[in-house]
């Protein structure tokens, strides 16, 4: 085994020059685009712009419809910070703003210079026959250019029955077609055949690495303080990158800047509290929201000595503060802290959690240009401590990001909305290392190296209303990824034996990748009720989650791309048909997609993924493909509303070294996936809801024969994932009783029954000796949940 050590000089400079050249190229492209469009302006045009907020709380409203009645096509929606901008010829107009749940506003404006018109929307009173369900325009389904984008209405999500009364937006997302829940006891989700690590989950722009509590039973998102949730599963806008299957963009409330409010809820296993209010009325506000379980309180009451000393809890804490310096500048500071703690007496302790911090600055440069600058910190870490009979050690691990993002939105005319910017992230990954607690410990400390990487991207995109019937959305994202020293990087042969190693000093560039990622979608509006769309997206992913089990563990490790581990690149093609009925009350869509995946990863037999200095030798590489049909039908308004979603799909992998190099069904495959959701407003106070889901069982590998060795029976496996577990289906029902007093105080009781017909859905299947007849082998299925009723109490004042 020959080892050569190379230290490469001068690469740093070359790489920085390469990066700057690419960034400059795109600045140039962006500038040309803007000049081109400005040159088109012949008649004198002026811009009206401003921020849309809710009058009672001061919260900015995302996606409010703003239009100038007198000019055809002169309309837009407010952005993630409530900003809008419309450019029309000089004149006198009526500006109208609407957003469901609020009274529409109209303003008379005389446009003979660029004008600022801020909008404050008053709450709409509760009306029974107009139940508010959505946060986007009536016909968005047909008119918006993005494909495969879905918005989750928080108010709807809060009415649906959930397990143990714990609202979970990740589980609610999986009720949409194309998004499959990874199963009971697992908060991961698969989007269009991709793995759970291929989803970018953003909380106020900060990436969340492990969005699950308690080993996957619950997600880390406290839905009380969430303003907006959007999922992109098809054509992903150019401003997002880094994960190839989807983007889950979660925006939280900022805090009521008019009045103080306290709200919260008490549930069977956790409680939450939300406090918000103004610091300076109308100018600044804060929001603090927290949630904690208390399952472990009951452990303390137990007679069992061992359970008494045990701990099992999790908490989430979000804290935010924002300040409007003036009409054109606003700064935000937000933080999220979450942790899970599992402990057994003093023998075993395991805790893990995320921390994120974001500082943002919104700047309205001029009436047509909006800027957002963000500095983001995000980390995920876990600690394991064992003190048992001479085995005393800790294992600590963390992944940490420092991220600087700059985004501009430019509104040159009513036909174009241009976005451009850059994103730079510095990653530090410290894989789990054993630290012996003392020299007498029976275990040695290990020294698995940390990894450092620098990920960058520049992007430009344009949303172009070519005509009333044709809408084009196109853009380019160019991303780069550099694996940096200090570190020793190995090269392996096909069997995982080390054949070479290279050493790099701190800051040196060990390996760099560039990937252009074009994004585009076309929307052809046949008539105001019907449209067809086509889209193409290419995405690159440079961080990969090493996870060898079907449930995902808090100890799963992220590794960076390197000489051996190439970036995942996924091309997705999609086509869709959209039709609304009865005045946009009913929505129907049918989408087909095909995904081509390069550089997919799987593992050798018996792979050791933790505490392994040569983890890359355990990896096998290949390709993947996924295709499917998604049907969606929704009734939006009325006392009774809901939706039905059906996905027919397949996802496969072909990996060198697995299944003889043949295509095999991926463990993320769900042939049929059905969701039926219904909500009914029985009276002014009572709402009933029900969910029914069905999906084909997971693809698994079953044995084909058995044999005896060393006096024991073992199983022989043939094709990978060629069998299926039994199908999964479940009915949840719920009822909510809400009371609102004259002074605006609200309280509600939510009753729910999870798995109402008590089906024992398979969690895992094991092959064992028959207890009665040990000569026989039987298949034994384990289920996690039978029927689970729950009650939650929520209040707001």
């Amino acid at each position, binding site marked *: 085994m020959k080892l050569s050590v190379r230290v490469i000089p001068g690469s740093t400079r070359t790489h920085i020059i390469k990066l700057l050249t690419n960034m400059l190229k795109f600045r140039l492209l962006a500038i040309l685009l803007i000049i081109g469009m400005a040159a088109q302006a012949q008649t004198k045009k002026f811009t009206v712009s401003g921020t849309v907020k809710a009058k009672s709380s001061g919260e900015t409203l995302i996606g409010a419809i703003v239009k100038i009645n007198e000019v055809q096509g002169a309309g837009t929606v407010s952005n993630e910070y409530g900003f809008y901008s419309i450019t029309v010829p000089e004149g006198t107009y009526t500006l109208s703003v609407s957003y469901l749940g609020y009274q529409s506003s109209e303003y008379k404006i005389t446009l003979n210079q660029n004008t600022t018109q801020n909008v404050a929307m008053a709450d709409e009173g509760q009306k029974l026959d107009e139940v508010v369900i959505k946060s986007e325009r009536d016909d968005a389904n047909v008119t918006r250019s993005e494909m495969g984008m879905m918005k989750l209405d928080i108010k709807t999500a809060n009415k649906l029955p959930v397990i143990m009364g714990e609202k979970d937006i990740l589980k609610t997302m999986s009720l949409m077609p194309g998004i499959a829940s990874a199963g009971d006891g697992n908060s991961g989700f698969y989007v269009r055949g991709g793995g759970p690590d291929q989803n970018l989950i953003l909380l106020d722009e900060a990436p969340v690495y492990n969005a699950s509590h308690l080993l996957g039973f619950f997600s880390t998102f406290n839905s009380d303080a969430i303003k907006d949730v959007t999922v992109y599963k098809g054509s992903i806008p150019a401003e997002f990158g880094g994960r190839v299957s989807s983007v889950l963009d979660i925006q939280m409330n900022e805090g009521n800047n008019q009045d103080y409010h306290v709200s919260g809820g008490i549930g069977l296993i956790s409680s939450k509290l939300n406090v918000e209010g103004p610091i300076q009325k109308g100018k600044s506000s804060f929001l603090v929201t927290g949630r904690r379980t208390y399952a472990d309180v009951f452990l303390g009451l137990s007679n069992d000595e061992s359970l008494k000393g045990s701990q099992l809890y999790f908490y989430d804490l979000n804290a935010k503060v924002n300040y409007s310096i003036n009409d054109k500048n606003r700064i935000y500071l937000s933080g999220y802290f979450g942790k899970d703690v599992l402990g057994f007496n003093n023998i075993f302790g395991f805790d893990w959690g995320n921390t994120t911090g974001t500082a943002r600055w919104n700047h309205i440069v001029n009436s047509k240009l909006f800027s957002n600058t963000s500095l983001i910190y995000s980390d995920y870490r876990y600690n394991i401590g064992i003190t048992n009979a001479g085995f005393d050690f800790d294992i600590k691990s963390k992944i940490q990001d420092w991220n600087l993002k700059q985004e501009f939105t430019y509104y040159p005319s009513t036909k174009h909305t241009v976005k451009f910017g850059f994103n730079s992230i510095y990653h530090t990954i410290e894989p789990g290392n054993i630290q012996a607690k003392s020299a007498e410990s029976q*275990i040695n400390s290990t020294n698995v190296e940390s990894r450092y990487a620098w990920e960058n991207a520049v992007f430009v995109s344009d949303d172009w209303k070519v005509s009333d019937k044709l809408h084009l959305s196109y853009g380019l994202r160019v991303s780069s990824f550099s694996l940096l020293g200090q570190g020793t990087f190995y090269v392996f042969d096909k069997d995982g034996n080390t054949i070479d190693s290279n050493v790099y000093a701190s800051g040196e560039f060990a390996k760099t990748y560039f990937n252009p990622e074009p994004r585009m979608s076309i929307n052809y509006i046949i008539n105001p009720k019907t449209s067809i769309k086509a889209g193409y997206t290419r995405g690159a992913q440079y961080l990969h989650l090493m996870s060898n089990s079907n449930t995902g563990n808090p100890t799963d490790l992220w590794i960076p791309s390197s000489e051996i581990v190439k970036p995942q690149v996924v091309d997705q093609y999609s086509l869709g048909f959209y039709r609304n009925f009865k005045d946009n009350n009913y929505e129907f869509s049918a989408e087909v997609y095909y995904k081509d995946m390069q550089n997919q990863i799987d593992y050798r037999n018996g792979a050791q993924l933790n505490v392994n200095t040569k983890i890359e030798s355990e990896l096998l590489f290949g390709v993947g493909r996924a295709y499917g049909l998604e049907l969606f039908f929704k009734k939006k308004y009325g006392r009774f509303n809901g939706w039905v979603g059906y996905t027919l799909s397949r996802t496969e992998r072909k990996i060198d070294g697995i299944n003889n190099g043949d295509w095999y069904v991926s463990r993320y495959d769900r042939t049929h996936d059905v969701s039926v959701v219904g909500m009914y407003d029985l009276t002014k106070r009572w709402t009933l809801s029900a969910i029914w889901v069905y999906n084909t069982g997971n693809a698994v*590998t079953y044995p084909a*024969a058995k044999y005896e060795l060393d006096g024991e029976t073992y199983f*022989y496996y043939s094709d*990978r994932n060629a069998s299926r577990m039994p199908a999964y289906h479940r009915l949840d029902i719920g009822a909510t009783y809400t009371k609102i007093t004259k002074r605006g105080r609200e309280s509600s009781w939510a009753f729910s029954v999870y798995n109402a017909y008590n089906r024992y859905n398979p*969690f*895992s299947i094991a092959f064992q000796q028959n207890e009665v007849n040990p000569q*026989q082998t039987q298949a034994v299925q384990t289920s996690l949940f039978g029927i689970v009723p729950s009650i939650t109490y929520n209040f707001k004042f």
Partner: protein
Amino acid sequence: MKQLTYLAAIIITGISFASCTKVIDVNLDKTEPKIVIEGNLTDTAGPGMVKITRTIDIDKNNNFPGVRGATVIIKDDAGNEEVLTETEAGVYKTMTLRGVEGRTYTLTVSIDGTTYTAVSHMPMKVAYDSLGLKEVRGFDGLVPYPTVFYRDPVGIGNYYRAVRYVNNIPDGELYVESDEFIDGKNREAILFNGDSEEERVLQPGDVVTVEMQCIDKQMYEYLVEREEADGNSQAAAPANPTSNISNGAIGYFSAHTSETKVLALP
């Protein structure tokens, strides 16, 4: 991790809704019977033994008839070679060949015109200081477990296996260790009870026998892989362990040192 998931499920949903199991019917593929070889050679007086059987369908009763009439040869790298004698159906034993630490052994099996070969290196013996008891705090209070005391020599590349018998009944539990994390340390390897049916808490008067083996790297990896593919579909996709026998045979050939100590509980 699976244990922790179940623990969490029980605590979360309360006592009455804990996880439940039931037997189900499954459709299983069938496959052509494959040759299974279990080959062991030690440095003790007992004979080297090779057992040959075939795989059977899952729905059949556990009957694994031996394969008769095979030609089984073991040779070492010091010029010794022996054709093993079939003492009973499918069981082939050495009469003269002895296992010596440090030597490399090659096994050749010929059945019906097909030849299977395997190579195993018998490591240098690591002294097995003693067999004792250690009390560990568990769910049921302080529990005694048999403990093997030994010192791992400095230098990565030592692999150990312990086989435990209580009152002469084997455990069926796998205890293997590599010195990757314990290199050079004085080791107190506690042999905890596993999930196996035969195990129970040790009682006064029990006689515990522990055999310690020094095995080679291939055998260590084979045992670890075989243990992982335990028929549970929630873990990593199960796959057949990598055998050191050629030509698609299932099983292993292991040349290892062996030392046995006995402990009677007071």
